[in-house]
């Protein structure tokens, strides 16, 4: 594992245009999945000034595009305190602006090979005129189906996606009956190297494995090196606390002891890298319930008690994908 994990990746040819136009390779596998016909719909944010080029690339790959609204992304603490509904905002925080050709900002778009499916695109909560406008609940519940996620995962998500009460990722971990498969690894979706962008119902979900297997085979025919890299990154050990709060290790897990050379916080740019410095000082660790025991040269360096939190409860776990 190396710093390439957090760099942009340019394919040799397949879907290369999208990376060049956007200036990043986020959701690369989703673009490939869409073009190959596996994914019915996806959405993304494109710089308005690059729209003309992006339309051409869509035309080349026979993809239809629906223009939504311009997002002016903000951090939650940048949203004024008197904005109605501010406290209900979660991961996406943005001011919404009407789209005008030639203006600045990032345009939210929907993409599909089927023009009719574009109508199913869903509104994101946006700040407009001092209030957050939320989408109807049913749109939220159904969106997973529209995006092509397996039924079992959509249903599981609707049941456990209550961040005040559950740690969704831990619920999926508890639901994992077989060996965790790298094809079900969602923890690198903030990098260029992820086959899935949904939260699987377990890390050995048969439906996810089947879907991704087929996708991976087709991508491998066109971009074998991308597949080789993605596989190697996904087949790692992860220490997971909560959404946006997990670490990937260049090491090996044996008999509950993880020996590692480097630890990487998997969401660059986010602020929940609480244990990065502690992990850097150690070279192995054990997780005993809520105690994180860090070792350096076989001696205990530090013991961290992971707090429970009254909301957004954390249940840390170590998981090895293969």
């Amino acid at each position, binding site marked *: 594992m190396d710093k390439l994990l957090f760099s942009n990746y340019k394919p040799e040819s397949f879907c290369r245009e999208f990376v060049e136009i956007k200036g990043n390779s986020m959701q690369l596998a989703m673009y490939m999945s869409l073009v190959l016909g596996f994914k019915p719909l996806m959405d993304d944010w494109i710089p308005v000034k690059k729209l003309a080029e992006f339309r051409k690339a869509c035309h080349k790959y026979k993809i239809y595009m629906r223009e939504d609204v311009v997002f002016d992304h903000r951090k939650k603490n940048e949203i004024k305190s008197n904005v109605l509904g501010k406290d*209900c905002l979660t991961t996406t925080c943005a001011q919404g602006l009407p789209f005008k050709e030639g203006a600045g900002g990032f345009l939210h778009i929907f993409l599909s090979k089927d023009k009719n499916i574009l*109508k199913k695109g869903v509104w994101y909560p946006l700040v*407009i*005129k001092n209030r957050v406008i*939320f989408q*109807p*609940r*049913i749109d939220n*519940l159904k969106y997973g189906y529209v995006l092509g996620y397996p039924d079992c995962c959509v249903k599981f998500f609707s049941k456990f996606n209550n961040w005040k009460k559950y740690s969704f990722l831990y619920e999926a971990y508890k639901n994992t009956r077989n060996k965790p498969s790298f094809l079900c690894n969602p923890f690198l979706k903030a990098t260029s190297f992820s086959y899935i962008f949904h939260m699987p119902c377990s890390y050995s979900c048969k439906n996810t494995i089947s879907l991704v297997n087929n996708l991976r085979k087709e991508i491998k025919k066109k971009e074998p090196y991308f597949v080789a890299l993605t596989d190697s990154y996904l087949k790692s050990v992860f220490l997971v606390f909560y959404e946006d709060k997990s670490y990937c290790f260049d090491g090996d897990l044996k008999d509950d002891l993880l020996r590692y050379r480097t630890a990487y916080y998997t969401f660059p740019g986010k602020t929940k890298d609480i244990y990065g410095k502690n992990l850097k000082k150690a070279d192995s660790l054990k997780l005993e319930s809520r105690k994180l025991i860090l070792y350096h040269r076989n001696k205990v360096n530090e013991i961290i008690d992971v707090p429970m939190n009254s909301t957004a409860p954390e249940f840390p776990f170590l998981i090895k994908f293969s």
Partner: protein
Amino acid sequence: MKNNLLEIRKEFYLMTGIMPIHATNYLENKAIRKDMIFERLAEQTFDNHKMLNVLIKKIKIWLSLDQSEFTNCLAGYIYYLNEDFENAKRYFLRAIERNPSNLDNWFDLAFSLYHSEEREQKLAKDILFNFDLFIKRFSNQKDKHKSISIVQLTKFAMVCHCKM
């Protein structure tokens, strides 16, 4: 008529367990949303198509008995949940005709349009970006029960564009 509405509310509650309360969300109330029926119905019918199918049959009967804002909103919710956005649009418009001051109705109409054809998607966004102007314009109509059409809304949206 009032008796019909009472009966409909009672029947709805017995079928779904959802309180048939539908308060007006005035702009000045500064509430995100006052109606809870749409959300509760979504959670109940998401995994339960049987319930939705029964409601689809029932709403036709209810609409023949009553044309109040409540029943039209209920129709809008049910058709929206069934992804019949043409009908959802129709009934949310009727709800707005009866009570143009209710912000919830405007947003529900906007989202029905959001899932329609391209021209109507544009109108949806116009309503979402100018909801206060739409409410003010159509609440000031002399005849409160005057019908409102998509064409009228589109014309007004163009006026909003000129002001922006």
